[in-house]
C-alpha cells in the first residue's frame, strides 16, 4: 500500500538515493518524474510573506507522474510526542494535491501519513491543512512536504509549521494514493 511514497521518500534517510537541485533553500525535490513539473518560489496573492513555493505541471505532463517538495529534520525535538504539521495550500485546477509527513524510526522503519482522505482537486483559495502524527520514542527523522499528482494545475504552499499537540487530537491516516513506479530525479 505504501510503496510509492516509501520509495519516493527513502531519500531522506542517512544514505539518500535520489536527488534534485533547484529546490528552495532547505528543501528537496523528489518524484516519479520531476521533469514533468516546474518547482520554485514566486510572489503570489495571499501568501504570508513575499513569496510562496509552487509546483506547476508542465504542458504534456503525464497523469501518472507526481512530484513533491519536501524538508527533513532530525526527530530529537519530537520523539515520543504527537505533533501536528500545518501548512497553507492553494490549488489552481489540480487533480490530487496533498500534504504528507513521514516518520523514520531507529530501525529504519517508515510510516507515512497524509491529510485524511482529503486530497485536493480543482481550484481552492489559500487554506490551512494539517497532518497529525505520533513520533515514536526512537524516532530518527521526520520529513514533510506537499505532493502534486495528476499532471495538471499549479499547487502553492506556504507557512509550514510543526507543533506539539495534545493526545486528544486524532492522528491522521496512514495511507497511499499511488501505485509503485520508478522514482527519479530530474
Amino acid at each position: 500500500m505504501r510503496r510509492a511514497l516509501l520509495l519516493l521518500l527513502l531519500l531522506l534517510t542517512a544514505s539518500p538515493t535520489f536527488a534534485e537541485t533547484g529546490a528552495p533553500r532547505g528543501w528537496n525535490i523528489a518524484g516519479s518524474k520531476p521533469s514533468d513539473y516546474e518547482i520554485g518560489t514566486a510572489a503570489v496573492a495571499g501568501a504570508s510573506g513575499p513569496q510562496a513555493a509552487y509546483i506547476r505541471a508542465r504542458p504534456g505532463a503525464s497523469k501518472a507522474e507526481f512530484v513533491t517538495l519536501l524538508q527533513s529534520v532530525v526527530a530529537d525535538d519530537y520523539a515520543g510526542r504527537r505533533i501536528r504539521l500545518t501548512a497553507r495550500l492553494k490549488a489552481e485546477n489540480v487533480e490530487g494535491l496533498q500534504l504528507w509527513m513521514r516518520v523514520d524510526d531507529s530501525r529504519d522503519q517508515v510510516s507515512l501519513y497524509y491529510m485524511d482522505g482529503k486530497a485536493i482537486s480543482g481550484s481552492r483559495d489559500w487554506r490551512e491543512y494539517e497532518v497529525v502524527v505520533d513520533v515514536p520514542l526512537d524516532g530518527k527523522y521526520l520529513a514533510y512536504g506537499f505532493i502534486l499528482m495528476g499532471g495538471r494545475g499549479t499547487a502553492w504552499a506556504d507557512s509550514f509549521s510543526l507543533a506539539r499537540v495534545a493526545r486528544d487530537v486524532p492522528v491522521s491516516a496512514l495511507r497511499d494514493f499511488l501505485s509503485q513506479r520508478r522514482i527519479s530525479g530530474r
Partner: protein
Amino acid sequence: MCKLAFVANLLGLSLLGLSMLPALAAPVTEWHFSQSAAGNYEEGEENGGAVRTVRPVLPRPDGYAALTRTYPAENFRGRRIRLAGRLKTEDVENIEIVVSAVSGATADIARLALGEGRSPGTVDWRGYDMVVDIPDGAHRLVVGVQTSGKGTVWVRDFSLEVVDRSVPVTARASRWNMPQSRPENTSFDQ
C-alpha cells in the same frame, strides 16, 4: 549505515592510503545489505560470497533494498572516479547503481538506472560503469546498488578507481539536503 560496515571502512582506509591510483577492488563480499521495511527482501550469496543477491520475500515487496559500501572520502574528494561492476537481473522492476558523496549537510548523488527509463526485466551478466566527479568537501562516499519492486538481482566484481580528467563523466550528481536540526525557510521567503 551499520556499525559493521563502518568498521570495514576503517579497515579499508589503510588500503586506500597505500594505493595511489590503481583500481581498488570494492568486493561485494563486504557490502552491507539494508532494506526500508524489514521482511520484504532477503540477501543471499553464491560462489562463496563473490556474488551477492537480493530478492523479494513477498510477492509485492514494500520499499527498497540496497547493497552498499561506505568509504572515507579523503582519497576521492576533488577527483574523478569510476565505479564499475557486473550485474544480472531477473524480472527486475527497478534497479540503479548509486554513488553518493556526503559532505556534512548535503549529499551529491549520481545514479545509473538500468533499463533506460523502463523496467530492466531480465538481463544476463553485463558490466556497467559510472564516472563521477567527487566534490572537494566530501567526507564519505557511499557506493552500491538499490532495487525496488519485484525481481532478483545478482552483483559481482565491483571496483572503484580514480581516473584521469580526460575520462568523460557519465553521470552528473545532484544535490540532496540531509536532515536538518529543525525546520527552516518554512515560508519560502529566503
